[in-house]
Each structure stands twice: as C-alpha cells, then as structure tokens.
C-alpha cells in the first residue's frame, strides 16, 4: 500500500513540474503586463523603465530559475497589479472557492448517490424514469442558464435570496445549486449504471443465496463494488471544477474566488499571480487525483495488490 502511494505521489510531482513550466513560458509568449498595469499610452523609454522595475528585462532562463527557486525559499513574488505577495492574494481567493466547492460536493453526494441507487432498484417503475429524466435535464442545462433561472425565481421574483457576494449562509444557496447541478446529474447516472452492473453479478446472487437481506446485499457488496466508478466520477468532476468550472459561477454571483482571480490575471498578464494561482489549483487537482487513486486501493484490494 505504501509503495503504491509513493508511486502515485511521484507521478503527481512530475505532472506538477510540467504544468508550472508550461505556465511560466506560455504566459510570457502571449503578452506583456505593462500594457495592462500601466495602460496603453506610454513611451518606449518608460516601458523599458517599468520592465526593469518589474524584473522583466532579465533573460527568460534567469526569470525561470528565479521562479523555480521560489519553491525552495517560498518567495513567489508580488503581483504586478496589486503589489502584495501572490501567496497572500491566492490564499484570500482560494478559501471562498474551496468553501463553494465543498458545499457543492456535499450537496452532490447527498442527492446523487441515493438517487442513483433508487434509479437502479426502481429502474422499471416510473420512479426510476423520473429520476433519470431529472438527471438528463440537469446534465443538459448549462450552469449559466441554471444560474439565470435561479436568480430570476429566487432573487428577482421572490426576493428570498441575495445575488452577489459570499457574506452569509444564504449567499451559498444559489451558487451551490448552480455549481452542483451538472455534478448531481452526472453522478446520479453513473451511480445508477454502476449499481446496475453490480446487481447482475454472480456475487450478488451469492449474497442473496447466503441469506443476506436485499438491503444488506446492496450496501455491503453492491455499493462497495460500484464505488470504484463513483469515486472516479467524483474525482474527475471535482478536478474539473477546481480548475475551471467555478469561473462562470463566480462571475455571475460575484463570488470572490480563485476562478475570477485567474481569469483577471490571465487577461492582465499578471504572471506572478497566474503562476502561483495555477500552482495552487494544480496542487488541489493533483491532491484530489492522488486521494482518489489511494481511495481506489482502499475500496478495491485487487488494485493495491496489482500495483504494489
């Protein structure tokens, strides 16, 4: 198990180094922060002066080495725009995003696993069909459309919920539903399919034959075997959301999260923020992936034995 975990982590580290290197070079190809930080209306001499001030006149390889050194001394630099440490800026923005992701994930797990199981057991009745129709619609509606409907109903017509910011628990409701809509739909379908696969297996018949009740069989054998698929889907969804999916939700609800920050830094070519922001998000994604891999092994002894 430990050897397996080490391999998973090593793989994650290599991926991480590749990501930070790509981000470093790609952001520098696409533009110059001076135009965005100072505005377009300065002489070439002044541009050169500011390039020196921001350290952008150094050869690219030197800037890269300095950037790598930050992993040792923790000095990731100042934002060109906000002039404060990027670690502070990203930390400020990461927490609201994680809170939203956490509440979205909780709502997803709470709804989609029971719904998926019900849809599998009741697959021939109207209940199963209703659940699957709901999942289909949920999957088909883009999150910005869902957000617009929620705002229209709950803020505009009923005036029950606030639209912008993250100040109170009420502020979480619409963004959480918007964020988790697609996840709930996807996970409900995958849970149902995984359960259907499992329900037809020989070991389920054996479970019934050895006298386990339907419920015991379902949870002890069925759900455990289906959990591999469910875990993969959760891992993929969460990783995807952490990397990009929050952007739309954060923009619509003026949620001060990392998605909004990364988009703005990309537009302004605020390299230090963009670099560190991508690092933070990559760490989050890789951690989730590594945790999912390790959870596989926990859920399925065959994996840890085969890969050890």
């Amino acid at each position: 198990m430990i050897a397996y975990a080490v391999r998973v982590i090593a793989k994650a580290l290599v991926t991480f180094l590749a990501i930070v290197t790509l981000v470093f070079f790609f952001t520098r190809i696409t533009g110059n922060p001076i135009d965005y930080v100072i505005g377009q209306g300065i002489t070439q001499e002044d541009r050169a002066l500011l390039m020196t001030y921001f350290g952008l006149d150094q050869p690219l390889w030197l800037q890269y080495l300095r950037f790598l050194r930050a992993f040792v001394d923790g000095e990731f630099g100042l934002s060109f725009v906000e002039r404060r440490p990027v670690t502070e800026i990203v930390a400020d923005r990461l927490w609201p995003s994680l809170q939203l992701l956490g509440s979205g994930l909780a709502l997803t797990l709470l709804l989609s696993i029971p719904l998926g199981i019900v849809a599998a057991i009741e697959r021939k009745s109207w209940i199963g069909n209703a659940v699957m129709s709901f999942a289909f619609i949920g999957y088909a509606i883009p999150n910005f459309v869902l957000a617009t409907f929620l705002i229209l109903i709950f803020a505009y017509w009923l005036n029950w919920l606030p639209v912008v910011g993250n100040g109170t628990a009420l502020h979480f409701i619409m963004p959480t539903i918007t964020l988790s809509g697609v996840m709930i739909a996807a996970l409900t379908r995958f849970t149902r399919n995984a359960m259907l696969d499992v329900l037809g297996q020989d070991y389920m018949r054996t479970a019934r034959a050895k006298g386990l009740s339907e419920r015991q069989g379902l949870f002890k054998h069925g759900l455990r075997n289906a959990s591999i698929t469910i875990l993969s889907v959760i891992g993929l969804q969460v990783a995807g959301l952490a990397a990009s999916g929050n952007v739309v939700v954060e923009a619509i609800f003026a949620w001060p999260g990392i998605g909004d920050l990364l988009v703005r830094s990309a537009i302004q070519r605020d390299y230090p923020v963009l670099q560190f922001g991508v690092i933070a998000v990559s760490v989050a994604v890789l951690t989730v992936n590594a945790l999912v891999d390790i959870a596989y092994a926990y859920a399925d002894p065959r994996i840890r034995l085969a890969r050890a």
Partner: protein
Amino acid sequence: MTRLLATTALAALMAGSAFAVELKVGAANVTTYLDPGRDHSNVGSQFYYNSFDVLVEKNYDTLETEWRPGLATEWKLVEPTVMELKLRQGVKFHNGDAMTADDVVFSLNRMYQADFPPYQVRARDRLANFEKAEKVDEQTIRITAKKEEPLWETLLNLQQVMIVPMKYTMSLAGDPNALEHDDFEAFSLKPVGTGPYKVAELAPGERLVWERFDDFWGDKAPLERVTVTQIPETASRITALKTGEVDLITNVAPDQLTLIEQDPKLKAVGSATALFHVMIMNVNHPTLKDPRIRQAMSLAVDRDTLNEALWFGKAIVPSTHTMQEYGPLYMPDLVTFEYNPEKAKELLKEAGYNGEEIVYTSFPTYYTNGLLAAQAIVDMWKAVGINGKVEVNDKWTGGAPEMMARNWSNPMYFADPFGSFGVMWAPGGPSQSEGRFNTDEAYAESWERFRFSKDIEARKAAYAELMDRIKADPPLLPLYRPYESWAMSTNIDWAPKKGHIPYVLDFRAGSITFATN
C-alpha cells in the same frame, strides 16, 4: 433597502447634520490599489476624489473653469516661474496626523523629482515642466517651474498631485525614517489622505469601504459608510440593484437602459464620457505611407451612423479633437474629421491603391462596442473600395510595426487639450515613441506654442495648426465620446459631475442627496 428608507427618514429629521446613511454600490470594477500618484486608469479614477484632496480645487458642477481653494487657500506667482501657495491650517490626515508643509512638499516632489518608476512614467507626460517644491515656512510653500507655466491651476488640480502624508508613508516598509520604493508600494494598499471619507477597507478587485472622516476640514461627508462591491457581470449588477442588494450601480450598457427605465423604482443617469474612442492608423506602415490612403480610411467612416447604431445616438461625434470641458479652448468650429465617401474614393484612386489588405485590429471586449465598431468600419471601408479585415487580439499592438489600424482611446486626463491630445500626440510622446506617428520641427514648434503660450488665442491658433497637420497626414480618427450610464434607486439623487475627469464617484457634501419620497 428597507434599512436605507428607514435611515433616510431619520436623516430627514436630522436636517442640517450629516446623514446616518450607508450606501451600497455595485461596480463593474473595483480597483486593485489606491495610489493617486501612479494611477490614471478609468477604474482607479472612480475612487480618489472621496479620500484625497488637491491644493487647488475646482467647481465641478460647471464646465466653466472656476478654481477654488483646496488645501491651498491662496496662491500667487512671485516670479515668472515660481508660484507661492499658502496652506490651509488645521487639516488632518485620516491617520490623525496634522498636514504640514513637509507633507505637501513631499507629495509634490514624489512626482516632480520622481525616482520611483511608476511615478516617473506618470510625471513625465504631464508634470515635466515642474522642477521642485520647497517649504518656505510652516504655512507656505513654493513651486518652481522650468518654463513659464500657463496651466498652473490645472496642473495643481491633478489626481497625481493629491496630498499624502510623508511620515506615514515612510513608516510603511523597511526603515521607518527613510523613503523607499516599497513604502509607495505599501501605501497603495493602505492609502491615507485628507478627504471626507477614509478608506476603511480595500479588498483589491473585490470591495472598497469608505467611512466618514469626522475630522475633515470641509463640509462633512453626507454618508456614514459606502461599500463598493465588484460585480463584474452586467446582468448580476442590474439584478442586485432591482432586488435592493445595492443602491447604485456603475457601467450600465446602452442596450440595458430599458431594463432600468421600465422599473418605476429605478432610474438611470448618464453622460458622454470625456474620453474618445479612436481609430489609430500607422503612418509608417508600407501600405499606409501615402497620407491619402489614411485620409480615405478616415473619410469613409460614417461616425454618425456608428453613434445611432451602437449608442442610440447618445454618444458625441467630434469634428476635431476637442471637448466642451476645455472651456475657452473648446474649438467645435474646427473641422478636422468628416464623412465623405466620394472624396475617399477619389483619394484612393489618386494614391494608386490596388486593393492591398488593410487590417483593423480590435480588442475583443476592452472597449464597449469596440469590436462591433471595428466590423462596421471595415464594412464602410468596403463601400469605398478598401479591402479591410478585422483581426481580434487582446494584446496591445500599438507598438508593433506591422500594425495598420486599431482601436484605442484618448481620455481627458485633465480639462485642457494638453490633457488629452497633448499627452497622447506630443512630440516624442507615446504615439511617436511607438513608431506609428511622426513629428518634425514645425510640428514641435506648434506644439510648444500650444502648450506654453500664455495667451489663450495664441494657444488656440497653435492647436488649429496641429489639427491641420493631423488632417493632412492623419494618424488617428476620434470616433466618438462613448455614453456611460449609472443606475440607482429613485430615492437617490446622484449624477456624475460635468467638471470631473471621467468616472469619478463623487460622494462629497452636495454631490449626493436622498429625495424625500
């Protein structure tokens, strides 16, 4: 909203005293730093006037130039190039420090003798004529200019020379008794001024909170607290206004105004911003070297149609590079730019234009309606025989030799032609330095007379000469002054003041009131 109404009623009872009111503003953008010296962005301009003061104030209610005492109570020239100013006494900074002559000298010299690169850049394009500021005594300072200065008051009224505290700034980073670049960097996140509102919180790009500063030297602020929250999405901003989460919003696009007008609880105010959206043309591009081709590119553009189609006729289309805000230097009779497709066709023929492709580069979203205008312009070119193409690029390409034509803006940084055309198109200025505009001795001589003549008629005559040069060999076409709107609940009475630079959110005494309804 209920809270606002309740406090409004209370405020009505407390006639004569400041309101105990909190205002919530939803802004498309909240600044990421506050440093009046280095900033001249449209986003930043919204936020300085409430917290900072200048030496020479202005009546912002009118387009006429009417100077008023600010942190200086009187000023006079003691030599042709030396201005002496008497300082207002009893002024306090938000941190409790008393404002001294040293603070004023420090604030001015941080720009006049700048060695901090962001200040150097800002000082060079507008404050280059000022040599130094010196303290005479505790109540008096002197400013020395290099040449006789016709725009003393204008250039003492600039955002860039707002007064900041010296000791406080020095204490922010490194050695508390020395001035380091890091002090200025730190100041931009912990700004302190002398204005009627102190910055209670600045969450960069997210939220700015002002609180009334009780020790303000002038009329007390009418609001106890103002919270400005960044709401980037227009639809969310409008919804937040409709649901009462905010009381006032910025940047309502022209096509969204009906949403506001249909709601009896809301209203919108707007104005044609003191800023030109312009089309620039690279005079040094091989295809565009012949001025007749650029004249044709300009004559082909029907700007009135652009105004009708994109701005519902609310923008202002100028005949020359001039704005009403310039007061006596406003020159609406000058015709530098016009629409004449027939002449455009003739000029193309004379120039021997053979259908070479002319690329118009546009930012995707930076300028409201910028991309739509680009597409319309290229179609208008087609009508006179120019083979145009729109290229979308979010990179600034104004300094690239291959740039042919693109969108840009010429804001009015201060109310004088020097504050707009004079900054952008000066000899050796940004346009020339980027290699897309040329000047010669004659141009420089006209520019010098326009900039430094003390006689207004002489300045106007020189400016007309510059406009003739621009007409004969055009590097730009000002399209229009875009129309910008703010929306608010009907019980608030606020509008942008004519005399300010664009986008200022002025919540000082007399600038915002609550109607009794």
